[in-house]
């Protein structure tokens, strides 16, 4: 067990180094001169050019540049945005809570509907409920979520007028300084009446859109895991003992069926962050996904580089935690390793 832990953690190190290398190389391959992008001038004095090159470390050999870059990353220096002139890590820290809040709500939506749907489908295998759940799951799994978002805006916001079209808060009626960065919490802390409701209303559609694919994945996984567990001997024993079906399904089967489901939920982090790029773009949600797309169109490569580094780093860490949790809750691996 301990050896597995060390091995698993050690394996992430080369991945991190490779990630640094890829982002480093990628940004140097991008067409366009970084100095020109910064100054925006065509002909600047040679001394000024040399000075700028020195400031950016571009007069160093490439390997030295890479070491400086990697060293900077280890010290939390992810570069400085060309456009806003603020450190990338600072911009990221301001925007990330918005993405995190959206992703968590999407995940809650997916879990709250996905697990019961999967359980119901497994228990009523082959019936109408099963077919409906599987059809909805297939559709959700195949959904182009950017279109799904536009459809929901069209119907819920434009036609029915139920939910706001974009953003996180009704800024005309409410204003307060961010404390935690989570709108749901900040709106409550502000004490302004109606602010919390506005935050919730703004979250509904983006959460549904972002949660759709995880919902489908979780429902399918729960169903197949449940079906497997329901065929086990101990479930038959529990049934034979005369326990109520609800108790058998809810207590004996579900607890064991959830082990692989928990892993799948953890592995949705990548899906959620990739989906956040699209969802945030559609709903003008001020998070890191929308920021990443905007840094491309603004040719703000340090922001792109740092942003991808940070997002991927988060995914690697979460996957590591998921793996370790899986080992911790699954006795077969715990004792085997």
């Amino acid at each position, binding site marked *: 067990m301990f050896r597995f832990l060390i091995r698993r953690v050690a394996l992430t190190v080369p991945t991190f180094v490779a990630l640094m290398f890829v982002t480093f190389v990628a940004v140097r391959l991008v067409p366009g001169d970084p100095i020109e992008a910064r100054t925006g001038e065509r002909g600047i004095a040679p001394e000024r050019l040399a000075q700028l090159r020195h400031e950016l470390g571009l007069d160093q050999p490439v390997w030295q540049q890479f070491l400086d870059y990697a060293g900077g990353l280890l010290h939390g220096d992810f570069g400085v945005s060309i456009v806003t002139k603020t450190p990338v890590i600072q911009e990221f820290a301001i925007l990330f809570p918005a993405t995190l809040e959206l992703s968590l709500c999407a995940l809650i939506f997916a879990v709250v509907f996905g697990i019961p749907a999967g359980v119901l489908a497994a228990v009523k295998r082959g019936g109408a409920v099963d077919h409906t759940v599987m059809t909805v799951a*297939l*559709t959700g799994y*195949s*959904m182009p979520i*950017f279109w799904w978002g536009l459809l929901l805006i069209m119907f819920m916001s*434009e036609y029915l007028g139920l939910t706001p079209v974009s953003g996180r808060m009704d800024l005309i009626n409410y204003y307060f300084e961010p404390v935690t960065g989570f709108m749901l919490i900040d709106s409550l802390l502000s004490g302004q009446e109606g602010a919390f409701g506005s935050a919730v209303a703004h979250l509904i559609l983006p959460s549904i859109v972002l949660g759709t694919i995880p919902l489908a994945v979780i429902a399918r996984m729960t169903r197949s895991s449940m079906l497997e567990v329901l065929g086990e001997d101990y479930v038959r024993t529990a049934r034979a003992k005369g326990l109520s079906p609800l108790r058998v399904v809810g207590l004996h089967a579900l607890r064991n069926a959830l082990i692989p489901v928990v892993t799948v939920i953890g592995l949705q982090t990548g899906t959620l962050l990739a989906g956040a790029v699209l969802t945030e*773009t559609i709903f003008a949600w001020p998070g890191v996904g929308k920021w990443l797309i905007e840094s*491309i169109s603004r040719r703000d490569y340090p922001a792109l580089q740092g942003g991808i580094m940070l*997002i991927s780093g988060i995914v690697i860490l979460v996957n590591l935690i998921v793996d370790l949790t899986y080992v911790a809750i699954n006795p077969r691996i715990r004792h085997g390793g």
Partner: protein
Amino acid sequence: MADDPILAPPTGGIVIESVPPEVSSLRAFWSAFRENRGALLGLIVVAFIAFLALFAPFVAPHSPIEQFRQHVQQPPIWAGGSWAFPFGTDAVGRDVLSRLIYGARISLGIGLSVMVVSVTLGIVLGLASAFLRGVVESVVMRVMDLVVAIPSLVLAILIVAVLGPSLVNTIIAVTVVYLPRYVRLVRAAAIAELSKEYVVAARVAGVGKLRLMFVTVLPNCLAPLIVQAALGISDAILEAAALGFLGLGAQPPTPEWGAMLADSREFIRSAPWIVTLPGLAILVTVVAINLMGDGLRDALDPKLRRS
């Protein structure tokens, strides 16, 4: 009795013995596939879309990029439009139906190209890792770990940002993103096969390494690979459409479904059909391919069955 073909001594024995199992396994596959109504429906829809894509110039009523300036934002037939433009026209007067039909070409083209390239590379890298082990395996698998660590769309965005937005670069980006699943699959399957007796027998018989890799082992790894390849087409189509939607894929006036959606965003209120139809085309295509892929999986590889 002596005339009974079964009991008669085999004359052309080799031919007779080797052909029947081939036919019956294909037949067994088809009868298993046919039983799955969803898979059959998926196959029919995919065949229809492929037909439209192949014969787009003959099927489409108009050119996908011709602008009919006097018919801007004309609604589709069911909303009071005319038969000249059955699905209406977009903001600059292009026929939506024709654009959708030509769009099928692009989406299926992307899906198939990505699949062919990544399956080929996946086979080569996967077999190389399984056979050579050592440094080759470590390097290949660590690179794959890295690709998997970066969220798919984010990696695709990075690649397109470096290479510049275009259709070909979309294909490159999506191929890189989906490569690891094929490499991992082929490697795992090949390693499992390598310990089996027939491989040992072939080795003892003096079969060369390349022949062992591609002729002896590879055919036995194909079933899961075919299933993954089918499902991979739909993922590639979705990913490419997402890039198109973000303006990082096919560039205007290419009638790519994702890019059509991006153009349509401001007409949510005034011309909802421009928003609805391209997305519906993506969804129907992807659902059909996934249905077909699920059917392939159940028929080819019962072990992988989800339920």
